[in-house]
Each structure stands twice: as structure tokens, then as C-alpha cells.
């Protein structure tokens, strides 16, 4: 009986040396001492004193307190439990819990007094939309889960919790609706999350790297989501949302190529605007990838594709330019990429101004100095603007890289190289799978219904959930 107590006392002794940053509070009540172990930075001092120390001291004045009595009738905290395993004490304390040990008791009480500073729920920065709720995810796990929970009040909403990272022990929650999400996907995600063996997870990006099926795949297979309503939309559709403690961007898995271009507010606007903005985004994606390459193909290889007036106009505008078209395009694209990177890295006040000023001033000066043809400045800035169009910016990163590949191959083979470069990208896209679902789903293995629903993205027309997800509960209505 006494053995367990002796271990507890040793534990208290080691902690009280103050090496671990754990503070020990001794309370003497009637005939015995009670010890409260907690980490200063992680506990809410007010709760500790009001709902633990005060009641113990008051009740301890006149009655004999045993551990069970304290547990059941003294402490006011809601989340409270009992345990007797001594080496779990450290974990509980590190998790921000406080431990109450009586000098002669065999068990100890674990009370959740966690309090860390958290950002208020603010408007989305990454995925800003015109119409749509403003509350986006924050770094705090509970707020994120509460944002989802209050939107989907479905009993079968499951939030499986995982602890990943030997040292950081970050909580990762996989949120899905049990009778919609496809069993195979859920198990696959769980299997991969369990397999992760790493010392620390700091952002959802880490998790994303692990659940890819091949690290060298060019296109992202998990979408990021910052707005809680888009997250709930995906969960309702049958996808899984992975929320990582300490990161404000949740992951949505599995995600196909065209869903990266689908913003939340398409579903709220009227039908025609949704269709129009979808077409706009697709053509912008195409322009971002191919416009510079086509400029090189037309100016330097087969310039008789254009009618005569256009050829003469381009030729006269390019006369003073010392570089050939290929180098000019590479230089201009490089400048626009540098500007984009600079505008992100610079602090907020300076950043926005720099990118616009930079693009115009450099463009204008380059044209005035006769280094770049005016047409090229237009093309470079247009393709830069087009690359901001996608709702989920992660799809645009590979496009920016592939643009250079297309320019190089067109610079060598003209239209022939252009077509084969484009084919190379299409093959790569079609061969990729995101959790078993073909990446180019509604287009490549063609399904008219899904494609229609995707383009219209109108809730009352959409009777069925996308077939490629093959969810358990098929119908929406």
C-alpha cells in the first residue's frame, strides 16, 4: 500500500528541485499534506487557486479529506480524472494538467487547467472570398474543432485524435462524418498517420509531406483550407479534414486537381457567375502555364501563324531589344518571380506597395531602356496576375515551375516542343492518384454528372455526391 505513495513522494522531491520548470505547491490540511504539481506557463493561475486550492483548504480545515472525497466533492473543475501510474505524471504535467497528490494516498487527481494565449478568430488571410463567413481557423485546436462542431451538429461526426511527434506530441484530429466518408480513405489516412515517426510536427505542411504517396509527385494531393465553412463543405461532401494543433491551415484529403480551383463562394453566388468564374479560372490557369511559351514559339519559330499586320507590329516593337526572344522571356519571368517572392517576404506595410510598384516601374524602365519589348511586359504581368487566380494557391506552385520547363522546350523545338511538353504534363497529371482516386477525376475518367455538378456547383441541382469519392451515403438530398 505504501509502495505507490513512496514513488509519488520521490517524484515530488525530483520536481521540487525546480530543474524541470515544474512548480510544487504544498498545502497542509489537518493531519496530512497535499501537493499540487503544475507548469507555471501552461496553467491558468486563477482556476488553480479558485477551484482547487481554495476548496481544498476550506474543506481541509475541519474534515478528514481522502483522495476520493477531494475527487468527487471538493474540486470544481469539469475535466478531472484519477490515475495511479507514476511515470504518466510527467506527461500529464507537460500537457498542461495539474496533479494533486495526498501524502498517504495511492492515487492522484489530474485536473485540466490548461491556458495558452490564443489568437481570436479573425478573417481569413490566405483564402479571402467576397461572400462567405469570416471565421477562419486559428492555431488553437479546440477553437478549430469548435468551429466545425457548431456548424455540423451531426451525431455521426467523428473527430479521431492522434498524438504525433515524439518530442512535440502535437494533437492531430481527423474529422469526418462516419456514414458518408469512404471507409477505405479513413483507414488509409489513419494508417499513414500512425506510421509517422518523427520528433516534431509544427505545421500541417509536415503532415502533408507524410501522407503523399510519393514524395516526388509534382502536384499537391492534399488541399489546404483556412475558412471553416469550406472545411465543413468538404466534410459534408465526404472528405476528411485533418486539423493540426498549432497550424491555422487544415488539410483536406483526398483532393483532385480541379477541386483546387473551386472556391467556397462559388456555391453561394448565383449559378451563372459560378460557371463564369470557373471558366475564368481554368483559362487563367492555361494562360499562366502557356502564354510565355507561345510568345517564344510565335516570335522565333513559326511567325507566319499570325496575320501580317501583327507580325510587323511585333517586329518593329522588338527591333531595339538586344536579347533574343527566348532570353527576354526567361529574364522577364525571373523578374516577376523575384517580385512575387519579395512582396511576400517583406513586412506587411512595405510588401504590398513594393510588388505593384516593382512590376510597373521595372517593366516601364526596361522598355524605355530598350531591353525588353513592350509586348513582353504585358505578357509577363498578365501571366503573373493569372497565377494568383486559384483559390488554393498550392496548385499554382507547380504551374510556376512548369512554366519555365515549357519555355525551355518551346525555345528549342517551337510548337512541336510545346505540344510534347504539354503532353508530358497531362500524362503526369493523369497518372497521379490522390488516395486511390484518379487525380484528374471528373475529366479523365469522364463522368458527366460530376463535371456538371462541379461546374454548376449549385446546391439544389447537385443530387448526388461526386461518384469518384464513392462515399457510403450517396445522395445529398
Amino acid at each position, binding site marked *: 500500500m505504501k509502495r505507490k505513495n513512496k514513488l509519488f513522494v520521490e517524484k515530488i522531491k525530483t520536481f521540487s528541485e525546480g530543474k524541470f520548470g515544474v512548480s510544487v505547491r504544498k498545502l497542509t490540511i489537518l493531519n496530512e499534506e497535499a501537493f499540487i504539481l503544475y507548469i507555471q506557463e501552461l496553467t491558468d493561475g486563477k482556476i488553480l487557486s479558485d477551484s482547487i486550492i481554495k476548496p481544498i483548504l476550506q474543506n481541509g480545515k475541519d474534515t478528514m479529506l481522502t483522495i476520493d472525497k477531494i475527487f468527487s466533492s471538493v474540486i470544481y473543475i469539469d475535466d478531472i480524472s484519477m490515475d495511479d501510474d507514476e511515470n504518466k505524471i510527467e506527461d500529464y504535467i507537460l500537457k498542461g494538467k495539474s496533479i494533486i497528490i495526498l501524502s498517504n494516498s495511492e492515487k492522484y487527481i489530474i485536473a485540466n487547467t490548461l491556458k495558452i494565449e490564443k489568437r481570436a478568430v479573425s478573417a481569413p488571410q490566405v483564402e479571402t472570398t467576397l461572400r462567405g463567413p469570416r471565421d477562419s481557423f486559428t492555431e488553437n485546436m479546440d477553437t478549430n474543432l469548435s468551429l466545425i462542431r457548431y456548424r455540423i451538429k451531426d451525431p455521426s461526426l467523428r473527430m479521431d485524435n492522434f498524438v504525433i511527434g515524439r518530442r512535440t506530441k502535437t494533437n492531430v484530429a481527423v474529422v469526418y462524418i462516419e456514414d458518408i466518408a469512404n471507409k477505405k480513405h479513413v483507414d488509409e489516412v489513419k494508417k499513414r498517420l500512425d506510421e509517422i515517426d518523427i520528433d516534431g510536427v509544427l505545421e500541417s505542411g509536415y503532415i502533408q509531406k507524410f501522407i503523399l504517396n510519393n514524395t516526388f509527385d509534382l502536384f499537391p494531393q492534399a488541399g489546404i483550407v483556412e475558412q471553416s465553412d469550406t472545411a465543413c463543405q468538404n466534410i459534408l461532401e465526404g472528405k476528411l479534414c485533418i486539423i493540426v494543433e498549432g497550424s491555422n491551415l487544415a488539410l483536406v484529403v483526398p483532393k483532385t486537381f480541379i477541386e483546387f480551383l473551386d472556391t467556397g463562394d462559388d456555391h453561394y453566388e448565383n449559378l451563372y457567375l459560378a460557371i463564369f468564374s470557373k471558366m475564368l479560372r481554368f483559362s487563367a490557369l492555361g494562360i499562366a502555364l502557356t502564354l510565355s511559351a507561345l510568345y517564344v514559339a510565335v516570335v522565333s519559330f513559326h511567325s507566319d*501563324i*499570325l496575320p501580317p499586320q501583327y507580325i510587323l507590329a511585333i517586329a518593329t516593337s522588338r527591333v531595339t531589344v538586344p536579347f533574343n526572344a527566348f532570353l527576354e522571356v526567361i529574364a522577364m519571368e525571373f523578374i516577376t518571380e523575384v517580385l512575387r517572392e519579395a512582396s511576400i517576404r517583406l513586412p506587411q506595410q512595405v510588401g504590398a506597395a513594393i510588388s505593384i510598384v516593382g512590376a510597373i516601374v521595372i517593366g516601364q524602365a526596361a522598355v524605355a531602356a530598350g531591353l525588353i519589348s513592350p509586348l513582353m511586359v504585358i505578357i509577363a504581368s498578365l501571366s503573373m496576375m493569372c497565377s494568383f487566380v486559384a483559390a488554393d494557391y498550392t496548385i499554382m506552385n507547380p504551374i510556376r515551375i512548369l512554366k519555365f520547363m515549357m519555355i525551355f522546350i518551346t525555345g528549342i523545338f517551337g510548337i*512541336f516542343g510545346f*505540344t*510534347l511538353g504539354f*503532353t508530358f504534363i497531362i500524362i503526369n497529371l493523369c497518372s497521379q492518384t490522390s488516395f486511390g482516386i484518379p487525380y484528374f477525376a471528373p475529366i*479523365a475518367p*469522364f463522368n458527366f454528372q460530376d463535371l456538371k455538378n462541379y461546374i454548376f456547383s449549385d446546391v439544389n441541382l447537385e443530387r448526388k455526391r461526386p461518384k469518384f469519392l464513392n462515399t457510403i451515403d450517396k445522395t445529398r438530398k
Partner: protein
Amino acid sequence: MNESLTNRQIAFIIFGVLIGYGVMELPKNVAENAGTGGWLSLLIATAITIIFAYMITYLSYVYKNKTIYEYSERLTGKFITHIFMIIYIFYYFLGFTMITRVSCETIKLTILLKTPIWVLSLLFSFVIYYAVIKRLRVIARVCEIYGIFIIIAALLIHTSLFTQGKLINLRPFFVLEDLPLYFKSTLNMIFPFLGIEILTIIPFAKKNHKKVFKYITLMIVCISFFYIMIVESCISVMGVDEIVHYNDALYATIRRVDIPAFQVIRRLDGIFLIAWIMAIFCTITIWCYGAIVLLSKLFKKIHFNLLAFIVVFMGYIVSQMPTTYDQVKKVLDYMSYYGLVVMGIIPTILFFITKVKKYDKKMQ
């Protein structure tokens, strides 16, 4: 490895195989053999192809998820199957190399004058190798996307060609006395229809039920209308006498037309080139895939990717061998007769054996 494709993907694979290099000199062959009444011989050729296609689909339909190797082994025994396999492999390999070579030759003579041939076919081989090692399902998906793009581009181009052409060039539509000529000319109109036999290597799964026949015949009819549209629009622009002089008849016609209505793309050769190179890519990838699959059936031990590398590498070497353009053309002419054997005779033999031995009843 489940290689099952949806009916729609099978139809688009046939579209990808048929529409390729044959389209480029189709107007010339038709005009040379059958004059302005060529559309009739095209229809006759389509009818024959539909019959062959029906037979091959029936075979694949009866022997679910089996390729020709398996069900011909069942029907005709090991030895004959090996002969068939060698015939098919050589046919696919020859097709793959010669079409690559003749397309690179045409691309060199039309748009990239100073680029050497070996570089063009090297780039082709790279992309084809990348496509082939991704296996049939990815090729089917690519063919689906490209099929739609090619159809849209073709409709745009050929309707505008019709507006520029003269109706009088198309007449006389039908000359009674020339009827035997039309039948005779279907013989050398086989080349554009070569490719149906690819169905033998596509294993049908349960989901390819009865409707697959409808899909395939519908696609072949749509392809034949596609061909007739091309031939009639080219003859309407160039006239029967002029078009026989150009081996790249379709490209010559497109370079001859200037549609003031589309302001920027008034010269259509930009769109046409992209669509045509995509079509060539689909054809060559599927022919190459055919050769590799059958080879992998014979040499089970060698890993598929290694086999693919060998076939593509050998194909590249063989495609550099012929020195002049006319040699390649001669090989392609023999290919069309060889194609008759592969597309016609062997499937009919297997079809009759199945019917005679009533295997199809047993398999149900």
C-alpha cells in the same frame, strides 16, 4: 493488375489510334483512287471495319479480362498462339517505328526545316516512354482528354474550310459507271482504318457490358464522318486535280486558307499543328503499348518497364534506318496489306472457332 477501362475510354482509345498520321494524306489517297466520289468508298471501308470490330469486340466480350494471348491459347493451342503473337508484335513494332519516322519527316519538312530527324524522334521517344510506363489506364485518360480537344479543333477548322471552298469542286458526287472503281479503291483506303485490332489487347471487365458494342460502332461511325468531313472540305478548297500532288494534303489545304473572320487566329495552322501532334502522340503511344504488352506476355520474367525501354530504344534505332522519304512510304503501303491480315484474318479465324466450338455459350 486491373487494366479495366470504361466503355467511353475504350471508344476514345479507338479514336486515338485511328486518327493519327493517316489523316494527313487521306484526301490525297481518296481523290487519287476514287475522285470526288471518294466518300462512298470511305463508307464501304467503314462498313468492313465495323464488321471486323464487331468480331474482335465479341471475342473480348466473351473472354472477360483476357487478352488475345490468353483466349487464342485456349482456342488454338500454344504453338499457333506464338505465331499469332509474333505476327502481332512485329506489326505493332513496325507501325510504331514507321509512323514515328514518317511523322517526324513531315514535321521536319513542314515546320522545323533545319532540325535533324533524329532529334525529333528522340523527343518523341522520351515522351512515349514516359507515357507507356504509366500503363494503359493513364494512356486511356490522356486519349480521352486529347480526343475531345481534337474533335473540337477539327470541327472549327473544317467548317471554316467549307466556307472557303467552292461547291463545284465537290461535284460529281456520284458517278454510276465508277461503282466498281469505288469498291476497288477501298483496298488502298485501309491505312486510315488500321488500329481496330488494338481491342484485342484491352481486357474487358464486367462493367464493359452489352453497351460496349454500341459505343464502339458509334465511335467508328463518328470517325468515318470525321474522315468524310476532312476529305470533302479539302477537295472543296483545292479541287480534285490539285490535291493529288501533295502528300501532306490536309496541311497544304490549311496553309492555303485565310479566314478574315477570326481576327488573330485567321491562319489556322497554329491550332491544326497542336491538334495533329496530339493525335500522332496518341497513335504512336498506343501502337508502342500494344507491342510491349504482347512482348511482356511472351517474356513474363522481364519487368514491364525494362521491356518498355528496350522496345522504345529499338524503335528509335529502327526508325532512323530508312534514308529516304519514299522508302518509308513504301513500308507504310506494305503495312496496310499486313494490317488486313492482322485486323481481318486472325480475328475471323478466332471468331469462327469460338462460334464452332460454342465457347461463347459455355463462358456465359
